[in-house]
């Protein structure tokens, strides 16, 4: 069994359109961590039709892929998934267990952590192996970075949002072992996902948008918000929001970015009429170009972006929309 032991394990997730990008990103990161430990990387994937997922996980750096293939595993079922993963982790005792901060991961991770009686760090933005072989888990807070460790319990568990780590280059020549795992024939029935339903959202989905325009309280009123929405539209961008904008009733809760909202990683982020509070900013991960528009030159957002425009967004945004329309013809 020794050769089937890996010290870094990723719980991968099979979505409707294949493996979730964050799962591959985590396997890429796990590869780096395992190389430091001189150890192997394993991925666990549960679902159906997993051949391609397993290939990609190996290509991203997994040495072992534990694969549970059953129609009972689609859609995600909390109890069954927890049972299978806990059993596997008890057998393999990894040092590190990583899960994507997806809706599934955010529920499954604490269920697994509590059963394994270990710690779990939420939504890390970096993972560093220190000289003692302990995983330093970094989270942003209070204008700085907090390091959290789980020194005694194993595995050291962390969730990480999509886009924190880069997409690994998939090496189709890499080889890895696929290990089928036993799936119970029946569902535990205390809690059962009956179906998952996709909702058509208007405009571009925030998770996949390469450009995001996010608005805050500075919009002032519905009209002000309408201009921000127009800016998003003309840029073919996803429209995001801060808590105050949602609370004001200008936009739906689904558009909220940040703590207890969405985690996004666009190429370009434009924050309009928002002050740059941590609760919002933690949700924007790895944006390449960041722009802020706010009438208060002292707003903290100007310390967190590449370009700042000190103007009332209610004046600037409609003019910018017009200029963009002219440019775009």
């Amino acid at each position, binding site marked *: 069994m020794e050769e089937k032991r890996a010290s870094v394990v990723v719980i991968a997730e099979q979505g409707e359109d294949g493996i979730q990008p964050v799962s591959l990103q985590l396997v890429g990161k796990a590869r780096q961590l395992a190389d430091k430990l001189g150890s192997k990387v394993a991925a666990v994937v549960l679902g159906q039709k997993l051949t391609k997922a397993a290939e990609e996980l190996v290509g991203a750096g997994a040495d072992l892929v534990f694969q549970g293939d059953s129609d009972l595993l689609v859609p995600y079922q*909390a109890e069954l998934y927890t049972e299978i993963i806990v059993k596997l982790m008890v057998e393999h005792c990894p040092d590190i267990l990583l899960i994507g901060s997806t*809706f*599934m991961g*955010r*529920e499954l*991770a*604490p*269920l697994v*952590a*509590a*059963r394994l009686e*270990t*710690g*779990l760090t*939420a939504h890390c933005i970096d993972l560093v192996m220190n000289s003692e072989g302990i995983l*330093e888990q970094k*989270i942003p*807070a*209070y*204008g*700085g*970075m*907090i*390091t*959290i*460790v*789980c020194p005694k319990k194993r595995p050291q568990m962390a969730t990480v949002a999509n886009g924190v780590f880069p997409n690994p280059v998939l090496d189709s020549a890499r080889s890895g072992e696929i290990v089928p795992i036993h799936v119970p024939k029946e569902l535990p029935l*205390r*809690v*059962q*996902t*009956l*179906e*998952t*339903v*996709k*909702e058509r959202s208007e405009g571009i989905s925030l998770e996949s948008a390469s*450009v995001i325009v996010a608005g805050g309280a500075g919009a002032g009123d519905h009209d002000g918000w309408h201009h921000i929405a127009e800016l998003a539209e003309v*840029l073919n*961008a996803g429209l995001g929001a801060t808590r105050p904008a949602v609370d004001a009733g200008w936009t739906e*809760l689904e558009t909220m970015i940040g703590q*207890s909202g969405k985690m996004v990683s666009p*190429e*370009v982020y434009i924050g309009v009429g928002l002050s740059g509070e*941590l*609760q919002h900013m933690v949700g924007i991960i790895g944006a*390449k170009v960041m722009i802020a528009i706010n009438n208060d030159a002292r707003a903290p957002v100007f310390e*967190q*972006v*590449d*370009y*700042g*425009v*000190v*103007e009332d967004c209610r004046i600037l945004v409609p*003019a910018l929309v017009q*200029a*963009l329309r002219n*440019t*775009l013809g």
Partner: protein
Amino acid sequence: MLNIVVCVKAVPEQSIANKLKIDPVTKSLPRLDIPLVMNSLDSHALEAALQFKRKSGAHITILCMGPPPAGNIVRECLALGADKGILLTDPAFAGADAFATAYTLAKAIEKNGPVDVVFCGMASSDGATEWVGPEIATFLNMPVVTMVREIVEDRGDEWTVKADYQYGYRKVRLKLPAVITVTRNLNQPKSLSFSGILKARSKEITKWDREKLDIPAERVGLKGSPTHVTEMAHLESRREVEILEGSLQEKIKRLVQILSDAGVV
């Protein structure tokens, strides 16, 4: 009649807490007396319980772990219509991470007696972790559904709920007793009424410490927490900000240029 427990957290008032910055020299947070308020997602958890009570009748117990001033939050919940308030307070509870917090809350729920539903907010505004609800469920050996946005059916011991999920929602059936963590979409919390405040004034708040809960010292607070904070680093922004100069038109011109350089237009 259902027995409902609502877990609430007293958190530092956000607008003040937001201004806290890690000191670059001491690498710690400045000590400030920030007023405690109810974690806003927990008010939706309480409202879920109150709505059930108004419709079908229920006994609602509020459970809150925190320093003595957190008792005010418990009283607020009583004024809103909860029947019983329990404050878990003990210096030994300090420094608890999500795991130790959930363990302590679970022990208190057990001690409080039979329970059908435990409602929690889906996350706390200060720590941003979402782990306490599911971890309580694990310690109580109950099922859990997180991020619930709608209770579709709540008759008998089999409930159907809708919970946020990627690109939409999932419909979940669960058997009570169970833990449910809620999102803001679930309901609109009501505000305090004067008569509620008056009624709550005479209600007793039960206080339990570690000994009352009969938990070993190594299971609570910092000692009972698998995770520890080892470092707080002040972070200089990695970005060099360019504040756009000139007239409104010049700024707009520059913005269009920046967006064009970034390949957006």
